[in-house]
């Protein structure tokens, strides 16, 4: 095997390059990315990079020199037109790249609003470095920010903006923020936290359009209400980028379908990251995740298997979110739980909510409680005493069997 082509320029693509070289692949690697930047970290975009605490050069997954030194041909700002699985080629403009194995790591794109006024200037989405550079340029002078969507991205932006002194309104269609991703308990906690910091949260409120002046947004319309806004950020979810795969005839269903080796329905084509719909044997279901750890893990798995290895992907998903001075670390899926155990006092802003099913730990939401998060990571699927978990006098370390 001599040629590997990677489509995508995100964290899965970046990790795949590193893993391929680390595993000793000496052939040609073409990294074809639509964005103009080398692979960079997305999580800080809505956190430290938005606030200005982190500079752009620190976002790169690996420095430019890495790709030169490791003889990786990078083709940036290069949207792929077509994949031909029969010819084993990828077409970019007039150029054709041949592959022996192909990795699709095309990620996702923000779901867009198509409402009256949604093309006014001042309305932004947040996914790329360019998106955040545009937002930062606006944020410097913005007085009223309206965030459409009370998910993690929206709430992270809210925490940065309100801290900078901007008036922030958050619109959430559902009856509580974070409804899609967490329990009512955690939704309440974050609702209260943001309200105390001065963020105005409007639940059961649907954005119906925008009003503006001279092409620039001035108000967000929702029912009988008009909310003043000179800056709008829409965070209502991600659509996986599967069109190239679909057109190439690969099986897709809410993501590019891959097996537990990250292989698609074509033996020579693998996929990794947010664009995939993959099986998780530990959780006994298929998942499409918007998650960096998932992207990195799948990229490592795909790299090994593209080189003829036999690596199975099976990890309990985990996520994190930074809002104000609170670090939230989440593991597993709390919606599967039949019981919850609280450790610590939410009033102190340092607590963990463990979730159990049939007495076994299956998930945790840990706020400023890294130790609790690590316990859940190590004891996932293990039966524990709920009394011990809740008792702050019990050292969690004593619950982990020593090796």
């Amino acid at each position: 095997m001599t040629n590997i082509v990677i489509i995508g320029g995100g964290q899965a693509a970046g990790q795949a390059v590193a893993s391929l070289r680390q595993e000793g692949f000496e052939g040609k690697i073409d990294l074809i990315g639509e964005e103009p930047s080398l692979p960079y970290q997305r999580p800080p975009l809505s956190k430290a990079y938005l606030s200005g605490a982190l500079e752009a050069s620190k976002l790169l997954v690996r420095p430019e020199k890495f790709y030169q030194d490791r003889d990786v041909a990078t083709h940036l700002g290069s949207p792929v037109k077509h994949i031909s699985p029969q010819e084993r080629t990828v077409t970019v403009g007039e150029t054709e790249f041949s592959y022996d194995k192909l990795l699709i790591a095309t990620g996702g794109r923000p779901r867009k609003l198509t409402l009256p006024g949604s093309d006014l200037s001042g309305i932004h989405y947040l996914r790329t470095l360019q998106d955040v550079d545009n937002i930062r340029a606006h944020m410097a002078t913005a007085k009223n920010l309206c965030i459409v969507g009370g998910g993690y991205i929206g709430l992270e932006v809210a925490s940065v903006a309100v801290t900078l002194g901007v008036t922030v309104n958050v619109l959430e269609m559902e009856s509580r923020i974070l409804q899609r991703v967490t329990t009512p308990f955690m939704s309440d906690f974050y609702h209260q936290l943001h309200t105390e910091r001065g963020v105005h949260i409007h639940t059961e409120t649907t954005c119906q359009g925008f009003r503006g002046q001279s092409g620039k947004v001035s108000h967000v319309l929702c029912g009988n209400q008009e909310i003043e806004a000179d800056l709008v950020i829409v965070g209502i979810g991600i659509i996986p980028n599967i069109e190239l795969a679909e057109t190439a005839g690969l099986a897709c269903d809410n993501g590019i379908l891959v097996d537990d080796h990250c292989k698609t329905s074509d033996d020579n084509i693998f996929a990794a990251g947010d664009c995939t719909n993959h099986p998780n044997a530990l959780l006994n279901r298929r998942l499409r995740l918007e998650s960096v750890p998932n992207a990195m893990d799948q990229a490592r798995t795909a790299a090994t298997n593209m080189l003829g290895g036999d690596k199975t992907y099976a990890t309990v998903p985990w996520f994190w979110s930074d809002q104000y001075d609170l670090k939230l670390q989440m593991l597993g899926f709390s919606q599967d739980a039949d019981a919850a155990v609280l450790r610590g006092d939410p009033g102190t802003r340092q607590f963990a909510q463990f979730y159990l099913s049939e007495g076994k730990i299956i998930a945790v939401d840990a706020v400023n409680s890294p130790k609790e998060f690590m316990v859940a990571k190590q004891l996932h699927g293990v039966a524990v005493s709920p009394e011990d978990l809740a008792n702050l006098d019990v050292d969690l370390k004593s619950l982990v069997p020593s090796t």
Partner: protein
Amino acid sequence: MPSVKFIEHNGTEHVVDGTNGDSLMMIATSNLVPGIDADCGGECSCATCHVLVDASWVDKLAPATETEESMLDLNPDRESNSRLSCQIPMSDELDGIVINLPEFQY
């Protein structure tokens, strides 16, 4: 340019140059030193960049923060010289530092 010596669990040594201000984690991953996963990219959120700092260098490092300490405490391979490499920025004072890598990241 200050250098770092990473020693894999199997004894393989990697002597690599680092840039001041970059974390030891970034220096390792940028040079394809195996044994550091760094799933969270350096935010002290995942504890998959665990390293064991050579005893003679431990005192030259700023102490671990409470968060880092908590993340390390539950690591089954925890030793008194355990650190998260994303939390150690390179500097001239650390030129020549020796870092041992654990067999597994958790």
